[in-house]
């Protein structure tokens, strides 16, 4: 069952990704992207990462993609498709390089043991399952986040704050009369 679901999600994700790249209009690409994100969330669930799957749907597919959509709408780019995709030699060259990269990546990843890189995959998975059972899907992430990684977590907050301020400043329309 899991394998079937994985293949299904994988096919949708890959298809969505290709759709993103080849989508005729930004809105189409965006919708393909949402499909990809959603199927990735499904795969997350297969890997017992329920909390992340939820966030993926809520934040990514929901919030961030809507943000993109807003921008597309704001800039009125919905039906703007003029030679957007670079065909020709450039496309072929890129395809070769990207294909090579894929090949090398696959080559590098081939032989990754089902037991995981350290060889104690089963034990880790068991421990993880036990932890989830004990603390719940959220608690298992929240616990290290607020203990060992609290500094990084706080910095993330700071980063978001900075990003918000930056976005406001950058996107603020300049008043030509103000001379700036």
């Amino acid at each position: 069952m899991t394998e079937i679901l994985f293949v299904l999600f994988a096919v949708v994700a890959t298809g969505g990704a290709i759709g993103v790249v080849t989508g005729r209009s930004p809105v189409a690409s965006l919708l393909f992207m949402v499909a990809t994100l959603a199927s990735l969330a499904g795969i997350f669930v297969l890997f017992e990462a329920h909390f992340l799957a939820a966030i993926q749907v809520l934040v990514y597919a929901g919030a961030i993609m809507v943000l993109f959509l807003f921008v597309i709408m704001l800039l009125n780019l919905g039906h703007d498709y003029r030679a957007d995709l670079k065909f020709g030699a450039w496309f072929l060259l890129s395809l070769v390089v990207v294909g090579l990269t894929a090949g090398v990546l696959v080559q590098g990843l081939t032989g990754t043991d089902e037991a995981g890189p350290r060889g104690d995959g089963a034990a880790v998975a068991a421990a993880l399952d036990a932890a989830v059972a004990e603390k719940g899907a959220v608690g298992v992430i929240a616990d290290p986040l607020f203990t060992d990684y609290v500094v990084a977590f706080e910095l993330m907050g700071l980063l978001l704050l900075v990003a918000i301020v930056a976005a406001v400043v950058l996107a603020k329309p300049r008043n030509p009369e103000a001379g700036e």
Partner: protein
Amino acid sequence: MVTGVSAALLAGLPASAAGAVSEAAASAGASTGAAAWEPILPGLIVLLPLLGFALNGILALLAARDSSAALREGRDWNPFAGPRRPATHRLPSWIGPGAMALAFGLALLNFLGMPADLHDPVIRSYWGWIVTGDLRIDAALQLDQLSMVMTLVVTGVGFLIHVFSVGYMAGDPGYPRYFAYLNLFVFFMLVLVLGSGFGTMFVGWEGVGLCSYLLIGYWFSDREKSDAGKKAFIVNRIGDVGFLLAMFLLFQGFGTLDFIPIFAGAEGRVAAGGVAVTAITLLLMLGAAGKSAQIPLHIWLPDAMAGPTPVSALIHAATMVTAGVYMVVRSSVLYALAPTSQAVVAGIGALTALVAATVALQQYDIKKVLAYSTVSQLGFMFLAAGVGAFTAAVFHLVTHAFFKALLFLGAGAVIHAMHDAAHHGDGHLDEQDMRNMGGLRRYMPVTCAVMWIATLAIAGIWPFAGFFSKDEIVWYAAAWAGAESNPFGALYAAYWGLALLTALLTAFYMARLMVMTFHGANRTGEAARSHLHEAPGVMTAPLIALAALSLFGGWINVPEELRMSFAGLFGALPMSEWLHHWLEPVTHAAAEIQTAGFGEAARTAPVGGGEAAWALVSTLAAAATVAAAVRFTSTRKYVPAAEDPGPRRGLRRAAYDKWYFDEVYDAVVVRPVVGASRWCWKAVDTLVIDGFVNFAGNFARLAGWAASLFQTGQVNMYAFVLTLGFLFVLGATVFL
């Protein structure tokens, strides 16, 4: 610190002990000698002119402050205008000559006190000048017979010329500066002649060159005059390189630069006629040629006439230019050991004497004639030194100092008069051109009379001073030509012939000068003529003193053979060959070496006839030449300089143009060096070296430009390149 060192035993020590010799010379205070003579404050002789320089220098700086302030404010400034000169222009009249008088008096005291049989020089060492490792150059004075004679000449003639200058330079705004330079010159000249080694001598050597430079360019606002000073300095420096190299060789060979150990050890240390001593002496001769204006470095002296005339008298006639002769005589031992060098020195001297005399024949500038005459007479001195007649060289140096100083000062008096006349005359009048003179005898009888005495002296007419000294030189050339084992006998004989010829030329051009200046019709012009006048007493007094010296100066060394020539007049002179005996301690070593090498000098000239006979011949010939010149010159019509282009072509034109030495040097040396300098700058420095440097810089810039081609500004491109890089790194981690 002032401790007398008498190195009495030095000369007698065997050569192998020369180390101990220099040690003894170095260790101040060790009195090993038996000589009891204590010189009286010899340091003060040197110090007095320096003191004069310091005082006059301060006055000069103070005066210059006023004059430059006046210049800036655009007002006239003439310190001589008021009824009473300012102190800065009054005091030098006393400080300058005063310092000289004191120095001369002190020198005279020492000279009189110096025992005639003083065998070894007295060294007074003051401080270690350059002391490092095995090199020790002391600031020390050496008093011996030679340096005493030179000191007397320098301070004595120097004093007279200082007195003359008081009159001559009156009216010049730079009056104190002039005396400062003049005093400084005397200081350096005394260091030169009194220095106890080549190192100390070199200080004076370059110092007098500096003063010569400053005094030639005394009127520095005049482009030509400061050019002349520069030329003198640079040409002198060429000679100085020879001097320096000779010092280096001497130091290598002897481990010291002091005279005493070098001359005492020379015979044992260097092979007679060897390469080393020949090189040393030739290099020293290069130095001497530079300082004493011998071919090929004589070109600066005629230009040096740009300086005030008393300067020409003091520096470029009486003292500084004879420094080369002094140096050769001082190194007589070395020269005696290098017969080849001697032949070269004599050859240079003879050639210079002849060439300069021919040029003098065709000059119209009174000072140029005298300048070439000086070069010619210096040639005689080198001829004397070259043929081993070191005493004769010094003798001629002394008499020449008298009569040439007199000639120059006389010319100065003439120029002084002409200058005043030119002020009142119409238009431009070259106050030094003899074509503008003529008939000055009427206006300046004293000057005319004393200059005739000097002319007869330089012409070599008995019984004037020049006769004895010149005759001795000529005779020595003849005598050594006949020495049995002289390898250069034929050469010496040729020198003798040249010397005789030159002596006659000398008589001719000097008589020409006198006639053109003082006799015949006056060519000064109507307006100017009434302002011609005799020089003031402060100028004529030194002239008269020098005239007396020119008249009787030769008596200090009347040859034994000619002693009886005075018999009819005063009875035989009691002091025959006095100078010869006086200088014996200095020159005897050289004389012995020469006699050992060449054999005894001959008693007859190469073409027969003894000393007395040739003396008679030469004085008669000189007298005849003077008479001929007077006749020839008087009958010729001279027009004022402005209307005369000079001789047109042929040898006369070539002599008029000084045999084109300046032009040749300009083409062969000056232009190539300047051209090479420019080439070095423009081609090597700017093009090659900086080109390489800039290429390195530009290469980096080029590489940056090439790399910047990737910077298209296209995000896709960047992403692509990024991916490529990622691919490489990934490939490396996966496959390697």
